[in-house]
């Protein structure tokens, strides 16, 4: 915990980044690279200089680890699933599956085998990733610091790349199902002939750009808002935990405990919202109402 408060905060908000540094790059410790090198970034500046072709090792590691944990637990229950008296794990898994299934059935009335498992994966995975927010902020980074890794952000959903990665996948599904259900013409019609339409052909053509602008923005806004909502909530929550951690030790619990309790609600709610919006967007993609 050396350094000023802002250094502490910035350090906490920096991902462990693995990427390529160009040749003749002057590294943070003063060494000059003779050729372009794949390496772990030592500072935030190095991570920034790596550009797009770098990966957040900590976000990916935790995300995949938690995803595997979720699938491992659920697969274990699924393998032993009986129609008789369920055990504890099976009970829990069944509650989750039924909850997701009901949410999907309430919103989505078509026939699609993907949406319900997709929603289950989103809910459980996002929830687990959010849950990492409740681990004390210095606990895991300190452990990894002792292991030699300077940066460690343990909450994958506070990384905008992670939330964008998921929301863009959902966006791809929206486009895919829109095209599949409505056809290219139907989808283009939906984008260009609404909300303003006219019986007059000339006026109709005149309104196409206006409609396309409106519908295009609302379409693009879907994945962006989906990603940024989750990211913003968790990032803010994490930041507040970090700020609380700056308080003197005796005062920390007076704030961190209420905030953590409140945060239990937030992380569940955000996971639920991400799942529900995904279902809603996909059911909209299936509706051939126009």
């Amino acid at each position, binding site marked *: 915990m050396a350094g000023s408060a802002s250094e502490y905060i910035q350090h906490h908000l920096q991902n462990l980044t693995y990427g390529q540094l160009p040749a003749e790059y002057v590294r943070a410790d003063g060494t000059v690279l003779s050729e372009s090198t794949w390496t772990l970034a030592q500072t935030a500046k190095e991570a920034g200089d790596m550009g797009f072709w770098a990966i957040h090792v900590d976000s990916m590691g935790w995300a995949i680890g938690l995803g595997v944990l979720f699938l491992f637990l659920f697969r274990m229950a699924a393998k032993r*699933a*009986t129609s008789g008296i369920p055990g504890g794990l099976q009970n829990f898994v069944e509650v989750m599956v039924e909850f997701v299934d009901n949410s999907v059935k309430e919103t989505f009335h078509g026939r699609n085998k993907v949406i319900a*498992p997709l929603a289950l994966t989103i809910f459980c995975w996002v929830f687990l990733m959010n849950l990492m927010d409740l681990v004390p902020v210095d606990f895991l980074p300190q452990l990894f610091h002792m292991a030699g890794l300077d940066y460690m952000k343990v909450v994958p959903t506070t990384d*905008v790349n*992670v939330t*964008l990665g998921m929301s863009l996948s959902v966006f791809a599904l929206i486009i895919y199902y829109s095209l599949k259900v409505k056809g290219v013409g139907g989808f283009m019609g939906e984008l260009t002939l609404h909300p303003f339409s006219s019986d007059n052909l000339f006026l109709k053509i005149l309104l196409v750009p206006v409609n396309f602008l409106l519908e295009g923005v609302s379409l693009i806004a879907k994945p962006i808002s989906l990603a940024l909502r989750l990211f913003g909530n968790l990032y803010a929550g994490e930041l507040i935990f970090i700020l609380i951690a700056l308080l003197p030790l005796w005062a920390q619990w007076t704030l961190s405990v209420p905030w953590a309790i409140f945060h239990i609600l937030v992380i569940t709610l955000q996971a639920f919202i991400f799942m529900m919006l995904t279902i809603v967007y996909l059911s909209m993609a299936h509706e051939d109402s126009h």
Partner: protein
Amino acid sequence: MNINLTIIGQAIAFFIFVVFCMKYVWPPVMAALQERQKKIADGLAASDRAARDLELAQEKSAQELREAKQQAATLIEQANKRAAQIVEASKEDARKEGQKLIEQAKAEIEQERNQTRDALRAEVAALAIAGAEKILETSVDASKNSEMLEKLAAEL
């Protein structure tokens, strides 16, 4: 906060997880749920049926009980009637028997009396002869007077 390859990595991981969930998690759990639902539905239907059966059986047993009671009542009535008949018949028999006995006794008495009377008559005849002999001091020839004696005896 840099936008970088992590987006694609996360998208790939997401895709793999969803596919795994869709193939290996969702179907078995759903199948188990649906099977249990069916089991419960069947169980409820069976219990409904059993309840109906029970009701029918109760009705039937009540009916049979009623019939059995009726039968028993008829039997008892018949038995009572029969018993009354038997008592009546045996009373009649006894009366007849008694009557017969009485008549027999009467006949016997009559016979006895006749015998006794005959014996007494003979005795009286003998006594009369003996008395007459004493009176006459002579013996009466019984064979000569037997006709007269018999006449006497018949008169007694």
